[in-house]
């Protein structure tokens, strides 16, 4: 009837990996935030898939909360970016080496 859950979970794995790769190799802080969003979406997809597999509403509720936390994270993170940009006029993560040993 519907596609087996393994395909969804595999897609979630690949999506999460692409997001993690972006966080690791990109230097622009804004793009890094977007890659974090990709990872959160992969987790959401996995939650929904498990909710469908187990016929459990809890997974969908958790997706709801993940959405809220993602919104809060983006708001605070972009506030940080604005504050950093005001000091440095640059949004590259490599320039924030003030605490480098």
């Amino acid at each position, binding site marked *: *009837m*519907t*596609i*087996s*859950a393994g*395909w*969804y*979970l*595999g897609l979630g*794995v690949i*999506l999460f*990996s*692409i997001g*993690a*790769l*972006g966080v*690791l*190799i990109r*230097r*622009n802080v*804004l*793009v890094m*935030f*977007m*890659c974090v969003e*990709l990872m959160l*979406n992969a987790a*959401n*997809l996995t939650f929904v898939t*498990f*909710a*469908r*597999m*187990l*016929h*459990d*509403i*809890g997974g*969908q*509720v958790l997706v*709801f*909360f993940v*959405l809220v*936390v*993602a*919104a*809060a994270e*983006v*708001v*605070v993170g972009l*506030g*940080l*970016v*604005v*504050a950093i*940009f*005001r000091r440095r006029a*640059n*949004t590259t993560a*490599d320039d924030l080496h003030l605490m480098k040993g």
Partner: protein
Amino acid sequence: MVAALGAVLAAAVGSGHASWVDVGTFAVAAAIVLAGAVGVVVARNPVHSALMLVMTLFGVAVLFVLQRDPFLAAVQVIVYAGAIVVLFLFVIMFLGVDRQEDIAVEPLRGQRPLAIGLIVLGTTGLLLLGQVSRWTTGAPHVAGVDAGRQSNVYLLGKSVYTTYLFPFEATAALLVIAVVGAVVLARRPPTSADPLPDDGPDTTGGTADGEPTPSDPAEGTDPANGAGPPDDDQGSVPSDTGRGADPVVPADPVDPADPVLTPEPVGSAEEARS
């Protein structure tokens, strides 16, 4: 990639009992999701990254619909594509950082191959794990049944407001904290000299626009502001502006004190550290 998708399609249809419509929808949505995700990572312009992110989010929403979860798909489109990505774009445009970034430059030598190797290794491991083991070992419908006659929205709302009531309230607190944090972070920092003269001429300018008709409450504020600068003669006009000038004048001795006070503990702390 298209050939791989075709193989995936054939395998899905041949192995399972999925209908062609579902399989086709899944394949197209998955292709959109993956293409968007790769676009987010490799796009040089942050604006293009944000638009690719929108593409991925729509693909994920389609996958939600495909899994009989229309409410979360709507929330995904509204909240993510409608609010979060717009916030991203707003900050990108606001800061003016929408210039090209040279991806070919690799500041840390060896970091990029190492990252790619680690990610490929982890992804392969996870996919193999999914092949050789069972994906789920949990008991079905512990938190609530997601099947039956009730609609998805009904079940979700009931669950949020009964079983998950406390996390829901904690979410409200989290949002308030995030709003306060964003306001504090994005506020222009109170530097020593610049904002205060800006504030001063603003209020006095506002009063200069009004007609200088002295009134009783304004006269009452005059002796209170007697220690203030002579600009207060202009400020002591209508009662409204007189009241508005009051918080400004006590702020004058306070704010210069801040930059004076704050460097001292920092300096002493640095001395103590060294």
